[in-house]
C-alpha cells in the first residue's frame, strides 16, 4: 500500500500493459509498430520494478536502478532497431514483418 494505493493495482496495470504489448507484437505487421509494442512491454516491467521497490523495500533503490538500466537498454535497442528498419526499408521498400522470412528452413 502506497499512500492508499495497493501494490496489486500497480501490478495489474503493469500486467495489462504488458499483455497489450504482447498482443501488439503478435498482431502488427509494420516493424515500427512492433517496436512500439516492445516499448510498451519494457515500460510495464519498469512499473513493476519501481512499484516493488517503493512498496516492499522502500530503503533500497535496486528497482529504480534496474529501471534506469532498462531505459538505457531500451534506448540502445530502439536506435538499433530503427537503424535496421530503415536499412530494410531501403532494400525491400517495405517493412512488413511477414515478408522477412529469407532465413527460414
Amino acid at each position: 500500500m502506497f499512500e492508499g494505493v495497493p501494490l496489486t493495482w500497480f501490478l495489474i496495470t503493469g500486467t495489462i500493459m504488458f499483455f497489450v504489448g504482447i498482443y501488439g507484437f503478435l498482431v502488427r505487421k509494420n516493424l515500427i509498430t512492433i517496436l512500439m509494442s516492445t516499448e510498451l512491454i519494457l515500460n510495464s516491467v519498469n512499473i513493476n520494478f519501481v512499484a516493488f521497490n517503493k512498496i516492499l523495500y522502500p530503503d533500497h533503490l535496486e528497482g529504480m536502478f534496474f529501471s534506469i538500466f532498462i531505459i538505457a537498454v531500451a534506448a540502445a535497442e530502439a536506435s538499433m532497431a530503427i537503424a535496421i528498419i530503415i536499412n530494410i526499408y531501403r532494400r525491400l521498400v517495405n517493412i512488413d514483418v511477414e515478408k522477412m522470412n529469407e532465413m527460414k528452413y
Partner: protein
Amino acid sequence: MIDFSYTVWILLIPLVMFVVVGLFGNRFKPLVSGLAGTAGLFVMWILSLVTAYKYFFVLEKAADGSFQKFLAFNMRWLNLTDTLHIDMGVLLDPISIMMLIVITTVSFMVHVYSIGYMDGEKGFMRFFATLSLFSFSMLGLVVATNIFQMYIFWELVGVSSYLLIGFYYTKDSAVSASKKAFIVTRFADLGFLIGILMLSFSTGTFDFLTLTGANSPAFSSGTGIMFLGLSSMTWSMIFIFMGGAGKSAMFPLHIWLPDAMEGPTPVSALIHAATMVVAGVYLVARLFPIYIFAAPVALDVVMYVGAFSSIFAAVIACTQFDIKRVLAYSTMSQIGMMMFALGVSGYGGHEGLGYMASMFHLFTHAFFKSLLFLGAGAIIHAVHSNVMNEMGGLRKYLPITHATFLIACIAIAGIPPLSGFFSKDEILAAGHERSLMLYWVEMIVSGLTAFYMFRLYFSIFWGKETHYHHMPHEGSKWMTVPLMLLSIGAMLAGFIPFSMFVSSDRIPFHSGLEMSIAIPAVLVGLIGIAIATVFYRKETTLPDRIYNALGGFSNAAFHKFYIDEVYLFITKKIIFNYVSRPIAWFDRHIVDGSMNGMAYVTNEVSDRIKRFQSGQLQQYALVFVSGVVLLTLLFTYLMTN
C-alpha cells in the same frame, strides 16, 4: 595282384593336353595341336587296351569266379561330413574297362578324322583343346569310384558338350542349341544331385564299392515309405535316373539332342552318339544292384521310359530330312533300347541277360553310330548341306563313304552277321522274358530302325540324280581311314562273346543266339529295308502319299510331337514372362519400393517439421507466448493440486 595304378594316366594325359593346348596352342601351327591331341589319345588307347587285356586275361578272378572290382587309385578330394567324403580315383570293373575301350577307341578315331575334317577351320586349336577336356571328363566319369566323382565329371562332360556344340559361336542356332543342351541336362542334373543327396543321406556313403557291394547299406536303409507310397530309396533312384535320362536324351528330356547336331560332326559322333549320351545307361548299370534289390519300381520306370523313348524317337526319325537329325533320333531310340534292356534285366547269370545286352548294345552301337556320324560328316563335307533332299546318287562320288555307311546301316538294322544283330537280339531276348508287349514294341522299333536307316541311305546315295555346284569328292586320308577302321569294328564287334566279360554279377556266363527271337527280328529288319528300298531306291511319290495319308500323325511326328514347343512355352512364356519378369517388377516396385517408401516418408515428415521453421517472427513469438501461458497453467495446476 597286378598294379593298375598307372590307369590314372589315362585321365591325366587328356587333362594335360587340355591345359597345354588350351593355353599355349595358339603359339604353334594348328596341325601341331591336332597331332598332339591325337598322339595323346593314341597313348591312352594303347593304355586302355593293355588294361583290358591285363584285367580280363591276366588278373586272377575272385573266389566266386567273378571279375574283381577294385580301386586302382584313390585320393581324398574333399571332406564333407564325418562319413561323407569325396574321393578322386579309378575304379576298375568290367563295365568301366569296356567304357574305357569304347571311349578311347572312338575318341581316337574322331581325333584322326577331325584333323581332316576341321582342316582350315578357325579355332582348330580350341576344338582339340575342348576335345581333350571332353575325353578327360568322360573317362573320369566312367572310372569314378564314387557317385560324387561321377557327378563332378558328369557336369564336366556337360560343359565340354556345351563348348563343342557351340563351337561355331557366331552362328545363332549353334549358340542357342548349346545353351539348350546345357540347361536341359542341367535341369536333369538337379534331379541327379537330389538323388545323390538322398542316397548318401540314407546310406552314409558315396562309394560305389560300398553302395553296390554285397552288404550295401542301400539294401537296408531308406526303405521307409516317404512320398506317394514309394520308399525314399526308390525316390532317390528315380531322381538319379532323371540325371541319366537327361544326359542320355530320354523322353521327355531329349529335346536337346537333335539341336546338339549344330556342333561339328566329329563332335556329334563322339559325344552325341558314342560316349556322352550313353552315360545315363552307364549310370544305371553302375548302380544296378541298388536298382534291382532296393528300388525295383525305379527300375520299372527305367524300363518304361526306355521303351517309350525308343519307339517315340524311331517314329520321329522316319520323318526328318536333316541327316544328322535322323541320326540323332536314331541314337535316342537306340539308347532307349539300352535303357529298356536294363529295365527288364534281373540279377545274376542268365537272369541278368538284359544288363549284358544293354552293355553289349552300348558297345556295338558306339562303333556303328560313330561310323554313321563320321560318314555323315564326310557327306556334309562333300556336299555342304545337311538336308537329304539336296542329295542323291552320291555313291559314285564317295565310294568309301558309301561302303562304310552301308555297313553301318546294315549293322544298325540288325542284319546278321554284323554287330548290331547280336546285341539287338540279346535285348529282344531279355525283353521277351519280361514283358511280351514291350517285346513287340521293341520289335517294331527294330523294324522302324531298319526302315529309316535305309531311307537315309537310299536318299543319300541313290535316289534322284542331283546336280552339285562343286563336284563332291572324298575327304583326305585323315577322314577315310577312321571310317574304314570303324567299319571293321562295326562288322566284327558282334562276335565278341560279350557275356564272358560283362554281366550283372561280373560272373561270366554263356548266352547263345535264340533262333526263336533272332529269326523274327531279322525278318522285321528285312521288311523295313524292303519298304525303304521300294520307297527311296528310285524317286517316287509313294512316300509323300503315305505321309499325307497318315495326316495329323505324320505331321506331328515331323514336328517332333511338339515337345519343343511345349518346352518353349514353359520356359519362355511361363518362367520368363510370368515368373522372372514379375519378380523383377516386384523387386523394383514392392521390395525396393517399400525401402524407397520409407525414405519418402522420412523425407515428408522432415518436410512437415521443417515448415515450423517458417521464418515468421510473430509465429515464433506466438508459439513462445502460448507455450509460456500453457506451461504456467500446467504448473499452477500441478502446484495447487
